[in-house]
């Protein structure tokens, strides 16, 4: 298990936190940028940097739209991002719980 490397896009504290927070949204839901920022307690610039990296990997989708006259930026985890997060979590869990004892001996 340890020779399969963990997904480097998610395996950084800040992006792991972003992904974990976005994973609580229902599929098909988006959250406004300021609200996400508030939940994570990150600066706008910092969050943007990490969101761009996640977007480049195809894990996050960023939509710019308007609510009335105010521009709104909405953030969501893509299905691919959700799968990547689930696989990442499963891989980390597997590291913690060596399932096959015979293999270890």
């Amino acid at each position, binding site marked *: 298990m340890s020779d399969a490397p*963990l997904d480097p896009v998610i*395996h*950084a*504290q*800040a992006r*792991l*936190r972003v992904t*974990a*927070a976005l*994973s*609580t*949204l*229902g*599929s*098909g*839901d*988006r*959250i*406004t940028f*300021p*609200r996400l920022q*508030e*939940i*994570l307690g990150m600066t706008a610039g*910092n969050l943007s*940097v*990490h969101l761009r990296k996640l977007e480049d990997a195809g894990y996050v989708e960023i939509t710019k*739209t308007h609510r009335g006259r105010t521009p*709104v930026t*909405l953030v*969501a985890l893509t299905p691919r991002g959700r799968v990547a997060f689930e696989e990442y*979590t499963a891989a*980390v*869990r597997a*590291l*913690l719980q060596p399932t096959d004892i015979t293999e270890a001996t």
Partner: protein
Amino acid sequence: MHDRFTVDEEERPPAGPAETLRLIEEQRAAAMRQIRVDDRLWYWPWGFAWLIGFALLFLRYGPDGRVFVDLPEWLPVAVLVALLIAAGVVSAMTGTRAYGQLSGDSARRGAYYGWAWTVSFVAIAVILGKVTASLSHELAIMIWAATSVGLTGALHMAGGAIWLNRPLFQLGVWISVVNVAGVLAGPGWQSLINCVAGGGGMIVFGVVAARWKRRRGHERRAA
């Protein structure tokens, strides 16, 4: 310089698998706490509105025309309506808080559901206002209560179907049963039944639903 340090720090992987899992759990829990709304905020305003409003109705318009407490005739209905409107305002605010910063399926589901309540209650208010003008006071109270409580039960069952929320569906069934029991028991008793079983039921439900969601949250994380 400082900024650069922070970014470097955040690029660093978490220290070991245990630390990673702890970070995920913490972040998910923090996000849930901020996005999700405590169920008591949904149900208690309505529960207390029914509890107090129907209690006053029972005390003023008891079974067989008895008057337990000689309140002004207009008071019980006025208090009930005022409390229901207040509960509606609290629900609208809660909904905005829950869904205002979200967009997409959940927000749309919440908005449609909110509108379903508003539209159907305005509709029955117009119809009943027209019909009950020609009925006795006793019968008018009975029909108003039975129709609104019945609609509330139906909308709760629909909510259970929309969100696949079992306790919400069960609450709808409970309210529907309470409603029929109240009508069968007759004028006066109906108010008492709506007060205790309906209003009290919703208050209890608020506590149960909050627990159910927490438990499901844990299960989903453990899965």
